């Protein structure tokens, strides 16, 4: 081969590569990490299909991982600065939002710079993703809480759905005892090591482990004290069936074993998946705690979408989120009906689906209830150490169950949290 043909061959190869390059740049790939195939994965597919109609050049690639893996992969890639291992959009649970924003500064794209209108979003969702005046994420689903209960078991125990409407925790325990006496079923499934219920009760009183400035607020926190008092009463009352871990907890109510479940609205899809239980379920507001500022509304979990600043397609990703999650009211109606997702776009609450009756719940307009409660969820600052505080609370639960004093538990939690947060 002479020098000239070598040169032309080289030129051809280079042109081919350039062509391939421009071709790839035409169809842009947006990679998304999320974790629940029946929920946020399915919703993201719907969003991608809607966006694809007006933007055929964008291809959304959804990767379904488990939640722990998403967090671990994200944290590893950010810590090692391996940005090419990262997706363009990632789903982050709200409790962890500030942790990521503050631990890895500059890694997430501020969507307030991309023209997202946050004034129409649920305020507590916007607040938890705001750092130094910039808003980073696209608020997604809300974890507004409700009390799901079996109408048949409650009625067998001599109570009516009206009795469930504005409960106190003492009344709830009283009903639980009646249910067990009459039907043999326990009132709820509960993981005695899990602090989820404590978070629900605490936020319903407008308090959190941290104050609005992010400083620990454990000792002297009325909301936490009320929550621990309720937890102790529940642990000692014997109205719960012990569950170990997530799937075991879910099976307690899907199997018809227990009479109620108190959790975020995102569980609705799982409850409704038990077709044979149609018509037997009702939804009520959560019981009210005995503390100042207590409400019947709270939040558990919920998550939001974030765009990685290192992504070459960050502008497209931001536009995609803004077009669908930031504006499309019709989209929110569809994911409400199909997946039971209560979104954070307030305008969506005026759509048809929100006022529709649900046959599974005996024709009750449960979505309207949830969106009303959503407006009442007290805004708190989740801070950056919620997992640490949760672990400290969890460590005190066995002592509470065996009759230890709530004040001692609070003191121990306070000490542990203070050494853990540095």
């Amino acid at each position, binding site marked *: 081969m002479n020098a000239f043909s070598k040169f032309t061959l080289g030129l051809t190869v280079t042109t081919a590569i350039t062509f391939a390059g421009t071709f790839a740049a035409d169809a842009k790939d947006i990679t998304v990490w999320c974790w629940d195939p029946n929920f946020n994965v399915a919703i993201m597919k719907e969003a991608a299909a809607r966006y694809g109609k007006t933007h055929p050049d964008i291809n959304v690639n959804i990767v379904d991982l488990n939640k722990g893996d998403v*967090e*671990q992969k994200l944290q590893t890639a*950010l810590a090692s600065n391996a940005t090419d291992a990262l997706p363009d959009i990632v789903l982050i649970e709200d409790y962890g939002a500030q942790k990521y924003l503050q631990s890895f500064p500059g890694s997430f794209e501020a969507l307030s710079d991309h023209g997202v209108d946050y004034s129409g979003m649920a305020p507590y969702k916007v607040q938890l993703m705001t750092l130094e005046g910039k808003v980073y994420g696209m608020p997604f689903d809300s974890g507004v809480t409700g009390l799901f209960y079996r109408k048949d078991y409650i009625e067998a125990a001599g109570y009516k759905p009206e009795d469930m409407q504005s409960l106190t925790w003492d009344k709830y325990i009283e009903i639980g005892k009646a249910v067990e006496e009459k039907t043999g079923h326990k009132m709820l499934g509960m993981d005695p090591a899990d602090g989820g219920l404590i978070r629900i009760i605490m936020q319903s009183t407008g308090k959190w482990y941290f104050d609005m400035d992010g400083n620990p607020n454990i000792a002297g926190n009325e909301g936490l004290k009320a929550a621990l008092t309720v937890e102790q009463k529940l642990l000692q009352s014997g109205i719960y069936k012990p569950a170990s871990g997530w799937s075991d907890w879910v099976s307690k109510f899907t199997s018809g074993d227990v009479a109620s479940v108190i959790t975020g609205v995102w569980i609705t899809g799982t409850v409704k998946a038990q077709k044979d239980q149609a018509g037997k379920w009702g939804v009520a507001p959560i019981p009210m705690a005995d503390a100042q500022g207590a409400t019947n509304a709270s939040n558990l979990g919920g998550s939001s979408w974030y765009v990685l600043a290192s992504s070459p397609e960050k502008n497209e990703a931001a536009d995609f989120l803004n077009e669908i999650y930031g504006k499309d009211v019709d989209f929110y109606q569809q994911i409400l009906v199909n997946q039971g997702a209560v979104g954070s776009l307030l305008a969506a609450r005026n759509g048809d689906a929100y006022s529709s009756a649900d046959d599974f719940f005996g024709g009750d307009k449960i979505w309207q209830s949830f969106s009303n409660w959503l407006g009442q969820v007290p805004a708190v600052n989740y801070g*950056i150490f919620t997992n640490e505080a*949760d*672990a400290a609370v*969890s460590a005190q639960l*066995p002592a509470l169950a065996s009759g230890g004093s709530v004040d001692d538990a609070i003191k121990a939690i306070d000490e*542990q949290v203070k050494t853990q947060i540095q």
Partner: protein
Amino acid sequence: MITARQSAPPLSRAINVNGWLFVAPALCLIILFLACPMLWSLWMSFQKGKGMNLTFAGFDNIIRLWHDPVFLKALGNTLLFLLVQVPIMLCLALLAAVTLDDPKLKFRWLFRTAIILPCVTSLVAYSVLFRSMFVEDGLINQVLLALHIASKPVPWMTDPFWSRALIVIAITWRWTGYNMIFYLAALQNIDKSVFEAARVDGVPAYARFLRLTVPMLKPVILFTTVTSTIGTLQLFDEVANITANAAGTSAGPANADLTLSLYIYQLTFKFMPSFGYAATVSWVIVILVAILSSLQFWLAREKD
């Protein structure tokens, strides 16, 4: 040529270029993937901060260890597992090996396979199975109730004592066979005539075991003790999958099963990432392994 090499003084072997070239690829990889990360983690253990915002902090992390109730709890749990589980497992492995070494035993291969089989299963897979078997209304409790061994379900997951017992049962199930292999192999290397001579001299069976078998297995017992100690100090998969809560922020009731390795994982991936402090805790494990291993070697030294 070969004779010349062999008779060369030791010093010239150290500067033999050919030799170094042969080991160079392996050496480079070891330095790159083993030595460098270790030195880097040592450097990290003197830094603190949230996530990537690390700054040099001197001995702050080491001081933090003493005031951290969670670390002290994890350290206590890990040492407890070590002191309780390793002796139980090694005694069982030794007994099983001696029993299965008996040529008169029928179906020897079947028992051997049955005991060794657990150690080919994946750690996570067996942990998940154990979890589902030991939950409140799981298989184990149903069997115990049906056989009237227990009058009410054993709180495997909700009581600190029983959740620790569960972890000990799980690791013992998984690793006894593994250690038994070493004892079996060692037993087959012992000259049988020694035992025959002892038997002819009228030495009873228990004394043959204590005075002959055990001393002759000493190097292997030392080896299994050291590897089991290291393994238990690094205990992670079982506690992370059997008794850890759904959020992965605690293990067992009141953190009764939290181990040092699991705490390192929490500090890195579950809590506000404290890479520096997590590195400090991992160096605690290194130091513990070094101390305990040298202690075991010293205890087992030849006393002539």
